[in-house]
């Protein structure tokens, strides 16, 4: 009987080891996934370039638009810091120009459309990495609005405010006078949609896209640069594409 009990005790030991014996495959899988991840980080930049090309080809022939949701699938990503998409109808829309100017003014959308129009076709580059090639924006150059308002000598910079109630942006006066800085009401030949910042948004062509404030409602001339929303969280105020935010993208304008 003792022998039998001892044998069973041994069997119990065997049974317990049965649960935990064998090869440590789990650990190997964990380490393998970690190694793959590290390799992906090392070569991801190159892989993303190749994939972008493939996905661009595929999504141009994809009627469902599902490939557009894949990483690097091209197209715009929607970023907003407000709690909802603000809507302003074409007739209710107003753009005010004030601050250090001789002639403060409020523009309706119709009045903006009646001014001399400019159209630009350039790449859009986001600071998070995505780029949308050859996007058309149409509207009024900032320089024209500023000429109409008459900037006072002490005016050195512009502060942009938005009717989402949260976002803001800034430009120096010199930057704003460039021929690729505009107040846009048209995108790819159609009115700027709500999601894209319509009816009127800023379009700062040579800079990362966070400078191109959506839902633009106010332009205030100030005596110094007042950093915009994301710039208070570490993004560069001078947001030239390829020369800021530690990035080296090809210039857009």
């Amino acid at each position: 009987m003792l022998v039998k009990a001892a044998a069973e005790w041994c069997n119990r030991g065997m049974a317990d080891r049965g649960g935990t014996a064998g090869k440590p495959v789990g650990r190997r899988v964990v380490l393998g996934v970690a190694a793959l991840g590290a390799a992906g980080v090392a070569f991801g930049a190159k892989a993303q370039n190749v994939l972008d090309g493939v996905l661009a080809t595929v999504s141009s022939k994809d009627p469902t638009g599902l490939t557009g949701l894949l990483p690097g699938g091209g197209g715009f990503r929607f970023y907003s810091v407000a709690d909802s998409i603000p809507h302003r109808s074409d007739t209710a829309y107003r753009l005010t120009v004030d601050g250090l100017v001789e002639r403060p003014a409020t523009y309706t959308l119709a009045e903006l459309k009646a001014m001399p129009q400019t159209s630009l076709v350039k790449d859009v580059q986001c600071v998070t990495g995505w780029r949308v090639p050859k996007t058309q924006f149409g509207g009024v150059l900032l320089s024209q609005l500023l000429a109409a308002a008459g900037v006072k000598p002490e005016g050195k910079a512009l502060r942009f405010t938005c009717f989402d109630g949260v976002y803001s942006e800034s430009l120096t006066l010199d930057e704003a006078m460039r021929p690729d800085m505009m107040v846009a009401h048209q995108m790819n030949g159609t009115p700027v949609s709500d999601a894209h910042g319509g009816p009127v948004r800023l379009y700062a062509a040579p800079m990362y896209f966070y400078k191109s404030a959506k839902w633009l409602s106010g332009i205030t001339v100030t005596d110094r640069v007042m950093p915009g929303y994301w710039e208070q969280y570490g993004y560069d105020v001078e947001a030239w594409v390829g020369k800021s935010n530690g990035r080296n993208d090809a210039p857009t304008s």
Partner: protein
Amino acid sequence: MTSKHGSASPTGATMPRPLDRTELTRFTVVERWVHRTTSTLMMVAIVTAAFLYLPQLAELVGRRRLLVTVHEWSGILLPVPLAAGLFFRSLRADLRRLNRFGAEDHGWAWRAMRRGTGLAGAAGKFNAGQKWYAALIAGAVLVMMGTGLVMWFPNLTSLDWRTGSTFVHDWLALIIGVLVIGHIRMALKDPEARHGMRTGRVSRAWARREHELWARELDAQELDAQAQDQARTRDRGQGPDAGRDGGRTEEQGRGRGSADDS
């Protein structure tokens, strides 16, 4: 745990304990809380990720900075429950079981995919699919944390690293989504598995059906406990000391319950 055992007559002491006791302990309180907190953090990370990434959802809620903050913190806290659980023996024991692939696990996941889990062969406390899931999701979480930190603190690394990290983070997120959906689907198909994770207990019948080797392992432990009882009773010549015997029964009950007294 029958405390009457010791006070019963000698014949009572040798009577076999019923093997079809209805419920078995599968998970301890610690393991259930680790699962609960980890799954909550994972769901928060996934939902915020979806609202940050998918344009249709992003347009619905906006509030990008709040979502980013919640996403970052839920992600970075993901391994904390498991790390805290490592202080407990029951969780360490089950981690060992998840780590080790025995002969029964060889080709199990492949057979389960082709014929279904019911026809893939007998499994231990965790089948090979569960072991693969645990290892893959653990490795994926580590990678997501590493790449996430690179994006969280962009000043620490070069642009190529950030682009590479974004690439890995985005694609691995899709893979994690598929894994988690699969995991939840398996749970939805098996109410008793969910009951087991909720209460810690499963029926013996379920254990025999889904985790046959584990059920047999517990059977063997119980038989062996009985054998020991009998052996000691005989050694002492028919006179079990009620107090000591009761104490030992208690101990065996615990050992059987957590199944990790190795």
